[in-house]
């Protein structure tokens, strides 16, 4: 699965995006976030405030309990502030 990061999350992780191969049992966005947190302090700091994480699966807003089944791209970003 391809992961993309935006705004403060992108800067904290230091990547626009990356390829991540999650295990079969990573069924939801929350499971994927847990795998990212296990990568260490950079991810733990970037994703620390769970209440301020927002997600999209293949370009559609999604909540962290959403199943990732078949999705090609997971986006992780802070609450949007356009307009």
């Amino acid at each position: 699965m391809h992961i993309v990061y935006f705004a403060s999350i992108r800067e904290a992780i230091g990547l626009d995006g990356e390829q991540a191969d999650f295990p079969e049992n990573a069924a939801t966005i929350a499971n994927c976030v847990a795998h990212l947190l296990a990568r260490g302090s950079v991810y733990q700091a970037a994703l620390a405030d769970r209440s301020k994480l927002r997600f999209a699966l293949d370009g559609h807003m999604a909540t962290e309990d959403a199943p990732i089944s078949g999705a090609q791209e997971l986006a992780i970003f802070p609450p949007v502030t356009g307009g």
Partner: protein
Amino acid sequence: MIIVRVEPGPLDAAAELSVLAELGGGALASFTGIARSDTNDHGNVTAIELEHYPAMTLPALDALVQDAFARWPLLGCVLVHRTGLVPVNQAIVVVGTASLHRAAALESTAFLIDRLKTGAPFWKKEHRSGGSAHWVEARSSDDAAADKWGQ
């Protein structure tokens, strides 16, 4: 008539909205969001930088416009959002709708900007006069404004 666009260059609100006057409706309503110097406590913002999620942005804006057309009898809609660095006093977003009567135009314009603020993948970063830059925090009042329109 629907125009939905992201614009990397300066945005001329009057020019963008002019097409709505030619649709035969009696009502044209619009909202223009402007980059302000006083979005923080220091009043020293020189520009707002807009980051977005290119693969998602236009589909999300299109979906908002389709939702507005489903709710109100609209003749046309213009929704143009800046990307990149926007100096203060320049437009960040222009939203306009045309309809036969004012209620549909006014309400749909409010709906579009309220929903855009919480549903479209844009992020603002303040550039301050000292050279520092800071991400703008989302406001809970924006969530409330978006929620009031229901499902």
